[in-house]
């Protein structure tokens, strides 16, 4: 199965057209809000996958799973890797205007063909309370 190189959630990214290098800006770990619901303009989940030679052109699906403390069940956003024979695939899930209805940990998971591969947690905290856990 393709190997996950990295998985991050950040504010924005940029891909240089000439060099194809990706730059990731403002990795999100903590968000502060005065009150709820809290709407964030946009965030982007980036996962980078390396395929072995015999996996090139294979059928693989990457799923971004968003677990929010306010939601009973998480939301899933699948995307299939292109069948092009490329060793490395970068997957970007851009969420525009996500709204959060509870303070606590937002857990972003990335799955490959249904199997959990990595998580990234963003803590949503109230502005005047730095440590809700006490």
């Amino acid at each position, binding site marked *: 199965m393709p190997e996950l190189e990295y998985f991050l959630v950040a504010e924005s990214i940029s891909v240089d057209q000439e060099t194809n290098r990706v730059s990731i800006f403002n990795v999100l770990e903590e968000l502060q809000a005065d009150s709820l619901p809290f709407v964030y303009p946009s965030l982007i989940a980036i996962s980078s996958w390396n395929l072995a030679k015999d996996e090139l052109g294979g059928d693989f699906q990457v799923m971004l799973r968003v677990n929010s403390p306010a939601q009973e069940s998480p939301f899933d956003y699948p*995307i299939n890797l292109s069948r092009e024979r*490329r060793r490395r695939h970068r997957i970007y899930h851009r969420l525009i205007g996500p709204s959060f209805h509870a303070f606590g940990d937002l857990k972003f998971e990335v799955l490959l*063909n249904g199997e959990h591969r990595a998580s990234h947690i963003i803590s949503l905290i109230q502005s005047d309370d730095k440590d809700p856990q006490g």
Partner: protein
Amino acid sequence: MSKELLSRLGSDDVHDSIVCYSSPAAIRRLLSRRREVIDLRAALQNGSLTDDELRRHVVELMHGFRPGQRFDGDVELAALAVAIERRSTDFAEEFFHDLASLKLRELSMSIGIARLILHARQDLAKNESRVIKLGEPAHQSKSFSQPNGRGRVYAMARNAKKFKWGAM
């Protein structure tokens, strides 16, 4: 300026530099060291030449194609391929896939080089994206076990293709 840069790819000097080489690999190496190719890459990098201009130039160049005759623009097309070999834009993807899939001996040099480059581009990371707007219906997760090879995801992937690369 950009027209001049592009026309230099087919100059006598470029033709002369490869006249005694026959393998696509050797020709690709030689072309990549040519000033004309380096200048073109620089122009693409600094934005003074765009993919749209490249596309128009290729269309115009191909008007000279005659079945059964060596294509006069073969070297120019090969040099262009080398100039954009690491470029990760829609134009470059389309250019290499379409050129490499042709089976025409009228342009055997550029096709041979395109096939080589396409193979080498396996190392170039593929960027794929999906844009999810607030309120868009998403799968509410149940236990997910099987890969979903087709269906809804492809509709979203097509939307994602409209994404302009650069700051997202």
